[in-house]
């Protein structure tokens, strides 16, 4: 059923993304696609791959924003994938039961054998986490790499989502956000991690860590010359001599 699991799920697996350390290299997006093109939701469509306008399904995309205007303003690289919400309307709107949220770990998935491709789930997601595969006629989305995180053929240290495994600046963290003592939960508490669009009421599992506050600008501006009598006299002399 597309009804949600009762109360809270046993575990709430998700990502914590550090906007302070992300350098916008897109490695997470590329490795995500690399892994998932052969994973649970494979294949991922490439349309017109060598043509003028290539496009396809990606589970993870890196946006770049500018925030602020003065010296505190900055560029923020902003990776975004499915947030595996606690209240995922994408699941409840699904008419067929293809979309579901797992009671055991809170991961939101699509059963492609049941999906009719009505696209309503993508309308119900404010975050743009679901993309329609024009080729196979079904909806696709981030699986939190269920085929990695539970994969006993991998070394234990590799049992993390592909995006996390590849991040060169360790800006992505994976863990159980339902456990207040987990490393990711402590990170969120320490760095004041936050939800995207809390006003939508989806209670996303994934959290974002804000860019750290910067120190004062490196070069302090020179103080303006005081308007003493001596200063005024010199200015008058300057104007006189400049004629």
């Amino acid at each position, binding site marked *: 059923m597309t009804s949600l699991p009762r109360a809270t799920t046993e575990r709430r697996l998700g990502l914590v993304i550090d906007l302070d350390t992300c350098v916008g290299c897109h490695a997470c997006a590329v490795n995500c696609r690399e892994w998932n093109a052969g994973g649970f939701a494979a294949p991922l469509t490439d349309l017109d791959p060598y043509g003028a306008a290539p496009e396809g*399904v990606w589970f993870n995309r890196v946006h770049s924003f500018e925030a602020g205007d003065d010296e505190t303003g900055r560029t923020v690289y902003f990776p975004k994938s499915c947030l595996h919400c606690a209240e995922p309307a994408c699941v409840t709107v699904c*008419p067929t039961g293809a979309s579901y949220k797992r009671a055991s770990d809170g991961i939101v998935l699509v059963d492609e054998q049941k999906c009719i491709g009505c696209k309503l789930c993508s309308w119900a997601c404010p975050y743009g986490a679901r*993309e329609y595969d024009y080729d196979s006629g079904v909806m696709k989305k981030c699986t939190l790499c269920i085929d990695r995180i539970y994969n006993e053929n991998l070394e234990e240290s590799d049992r993390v989502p592909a995006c996390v495994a590849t991040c060169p600046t360790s800006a992505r963290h994976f863990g159980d956000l339902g456990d207040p003592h987990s490393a990711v939960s402590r990170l969120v508490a320490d760095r004041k991690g936050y939800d995207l669009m809390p006003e939508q009421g989806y209670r996303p599992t994934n959290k974002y860590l804000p860019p750290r506050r910067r120190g004062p600008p490196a070069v302090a501006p020179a103080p303006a010359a005081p308007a003493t009598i001596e200063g005024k006299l010199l200015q008058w002399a300057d104007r006189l001599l400049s004629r």
Partner: protein
Amino acid sequence: MHPAYSVIAFTVASGAGYGLLGCLAALALLGRLPAAPGFAWTALGLAFVLATAGLLSSTLHLGHPERAWRAFSQWRSSWLSREGVAALAGYVPAGLFALGWLFLSEPEGGFAVLHPAFIGAAAVALALCLVTVFCTAMIYASLKPIQRWHNGWVAPAYLMFAAMSGVLWLTALMIGFGVGQRAVLWLAAALIALAGAVKLGYWRFIDRTASASTAASATGLGHLGAVRLLDPPHTEENYLLREMGYRLARKHAAKLRRLAFLMGFALPLVLTLVAAAVVQPWAAIAAGAAAFLATAGLVIERWLFFAEAKHAVTLYYGADRA
């Protein structure tokens, strides 16, 4: 939102179909169904064709139409599923009501007298017409990321527009078959006025309501200052932009709103009043034109309903508010 023609056709046609069917069922409950086989066959036929064609056209945008039967399973959580169940269930009482009127009714003083069992079927059919149209509206009204749909105007609007187009087709057919009733004409005029008022109210609401989500809340970076998109995450189109990123120029929207209001509500109201005042064949022509114009106007109205709707995901692609 991308205005997909299959969904526009579906909502306008099935709205008119359920509206007409509901009007016929209401007439049965009031004992005012004309005893005129030509009218009965045409009116029921049109209602069934419009409703069914609408439902079938809604499957055109599916990736896997052959799996559409699965959509009847999730009525506990999904308005789309509820709509499918209500639409399918409605065929039973509607079919019984049609059977009773076409084959098993007795004419008396120009009206068809139905067996109470068939009047009961008409009552259930009327209820399911209302439920189906309400479910259609709730598919849209339940979507929080689209503020212009997630509000209290959408369900009344869908119900009013279905009732209005239904009663206009009813009026046109009744006058065309020479079984017109003055009360139905006045009801049509009243419904057009109400429906037009609801549409104006909706437009006023969406123009004046501040968006709950902004680029600042979407990124959580508002504390740093104004948030602007510096680089999009991809250089080419993608599904999200094609489906959710539809943008309509404000000057075009204003023109189309005027056109939709004129064709959908203002002219049909005038033509309905004309039909009440003149004799045949002018009355039939005026009522027929009112029904056609209103339906065409509702197609524009429905196109605008999609095209003017902004989705929260656009905040990640440079929109400031949604």
